């Protein structure tokens, strides 16, 4: 059973990341996303991680997000991190964590533009 909501939008997968992502939740997120990618018939779509509901992102949560994107990348999916709040962006940079390996977009709408239509 899927514990993490995974939506399909314009040929891409959209995951609204829930707050309070702890060890257990992180594992669920990664497993569910990877299984959804494997099941998805639209092989050329991207993956949108919507983090607009996260009021903070510590290095642990940042690592989970970056790892998820890296795992999806190994399965041939491009990930876009969408909706980071201003205070979260400020906090991450102050801590010295720039999340440089993952493309970002202001919101899901911009993330969809970035991914374009599935080829």
């Amino acid at each position, binding site marked *: 059973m899927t514990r993490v909501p995974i939506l399909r939008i314009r040929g891409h997968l959209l995951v609204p990341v829930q707050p309070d992502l*702890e060890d257990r939740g992180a594992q669920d997120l990664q497993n569910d996303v990877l299984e959804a990618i494997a099941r998805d018939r639209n092989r050329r779509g991207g993956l949108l991680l919507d983090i607009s509901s996260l009021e*903070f992102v*510590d290095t*642990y949560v940042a690592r989970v997000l970056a790892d998820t994107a890296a795992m999806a990348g190994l399965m041939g999916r491009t990930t876009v991190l969408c909706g980071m*709040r201003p*205070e979260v962006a*400020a906090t991450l940079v*102050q*801590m010295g964590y720039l999340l440089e390996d993952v493309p970002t977009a202001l919101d899901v709408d911009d993330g969809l533009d970035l991914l374009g239509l599935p080829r």
Partner: protein
Amino acid sequence: MTRRWFRSPAPATGDRPDRPPDPHGRATVPITTEADVAVVRRRARELATELQFDTFSLAAITTAASELSRNVWRHGGGGYAVLERVRDGARVGVKLLFVDEGPGVRDLDRALQGGWSTGRSLGLGLSGSRRLVDEFEIETAPGKGTRVEIVKWLRVRR
């Protein structure tokens, strides 16, 4: 015992007070499970919200509380946090203390530089937390545990 003090230039009304802190709002939270990390984080955020910190400072306090309580749980084998409000003349702030009796931080200089870690985190927990707050004090020794105290002052706009 290695002991380090870090202080950003004090804004407005001078140095940290030596008198006992305001006892109101002081709370001790045990950290023995991962769920307790979330409790500390939530309590720290609630305390800072009561003091009307802005959203940027709230995120900084919540994040630092999360990093440091996670260190207590993951690296220190458990411990506790003490959350309280502090006052120094006209300004107010939050003071968070994190204590464990774990193995201690082996190479404090490297840990404070960041980008190095013994656990699963990024190694930015200590150095990152230090950059998010106004005052940061750490005491650690091999086998004697770790004690980290941070203070964030409420910026008063005039």
